[in-house]
């Protein structure tokens, strides 16, 4: 006997994501899901963003990693609330993990919640966690062909931060070609070019993020 089902496999994840969204809306928290491959500079961009927005908004951070709390310790030195999630092998954050993390954060004291996803360009794109904004960090040494290889990620995000532009003189990376491909796959996406080493481009990115938060 065949039974028709037609159910979204990620329905349960989406339901919890909706609850997360509700909880954060109640506390007027604006959540940003930050995704990238390992080593693109998620934590560095987060640190630069935290410093650029110091005094302008109250920030909290959720760090997602397969193992360790190295990133959380680094971020905690900035004197802001941070929770570490260890996925124990899973390659992405899911909404139930964010639900647990939210219960351990002082939500009334947070306006902007930066959520650093596990380093990976495949699965995080598929799992909604209740965020207001999806941001991807790309980096120059990864090469300009990544949009072709991970179209779902590039198609899903609201903004792309191209990091490590200080390495452009030393690495074969066609910025114009990259920009064209990205806009082709995702016409609505905002693209920022930054260097966490020199600080170049951080201000426009942070300013845009703040404006998006305030326009919610």
């Amino acid at each position: 006997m065949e039974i028709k089902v037609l159910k979204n496999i990620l329905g349960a994840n989406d339901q919890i994501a909706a609850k997360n969204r509700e909880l954060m809306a109640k506390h007027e928290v604006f959540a940003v899901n930050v995704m990238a491959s390992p080593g693109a500079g998620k934590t560095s961009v987060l640190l630069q963003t935290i410093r650029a927005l110091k005094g302008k908004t109250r920030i909290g951070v959720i760090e997602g990693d397969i193992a360790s709390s190295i990133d959380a310790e680094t971020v905690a030195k900035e004197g802001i609330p941070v929770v570490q999630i260890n996925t124990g092998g899973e390659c992405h954050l899911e909404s139930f993990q964010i639900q647990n993390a939210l219960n351990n954060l002082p939500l009334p004291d947070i306006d902007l919640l930066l959520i650093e996803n596990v380093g990976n360009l495949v699965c995080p794109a598929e799992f909604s966690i209740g965020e207001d904004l999806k941001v991807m960090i790309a980096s120059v040494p990864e090469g300009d062909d990544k949009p072709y290889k991970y179209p779902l990620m590039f198609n899903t995000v609201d903004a792309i931060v191209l990091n490590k532009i200080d390495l452009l003189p030393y690495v074969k990376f066609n910025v114009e070609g990259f920009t064209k491909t990205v806009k082709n796959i995702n016409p609505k996406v905002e693209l920022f070019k930054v260097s966490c080493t020199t600080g170049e481009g951080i201000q426009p990115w942070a300013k845009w993020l703040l404006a998006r938060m305030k326009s919610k």
Partner: protein
Amino acid sequence: MHELSITQSMLEIVLQQAAKAKAKKVTKINLIIGEMTGVVSDSVQFYLDILTQETIAAGAQVSFTLVPSQGKCRKCGRIFTLPEFDWTCPDCQGKIIDVISGKELFVESIEVE
């Protein structure tokens, strides 16, 4: 790796539906999977074989219906299969393409005894 959590979520839906129908055994699970999700059928079957041990879905076979990635040109409305590279409209050379399929992840039906 993401096949593990996808298979877990899928199995929850399958077991719920099977219990509702008072089924004794689940023999087949028919899925609709968008090409862009990158979900690999062999991995899903592998995880399913492990996760279903001692459930009524033990030994169930997974069948994939792949949905091709399709885009729609914003300029002329042409719908076409998205190639791996260069998403350009084959008719008007338009560069702004909306993805209309290829992201699906559905349990379509199950076969039970």
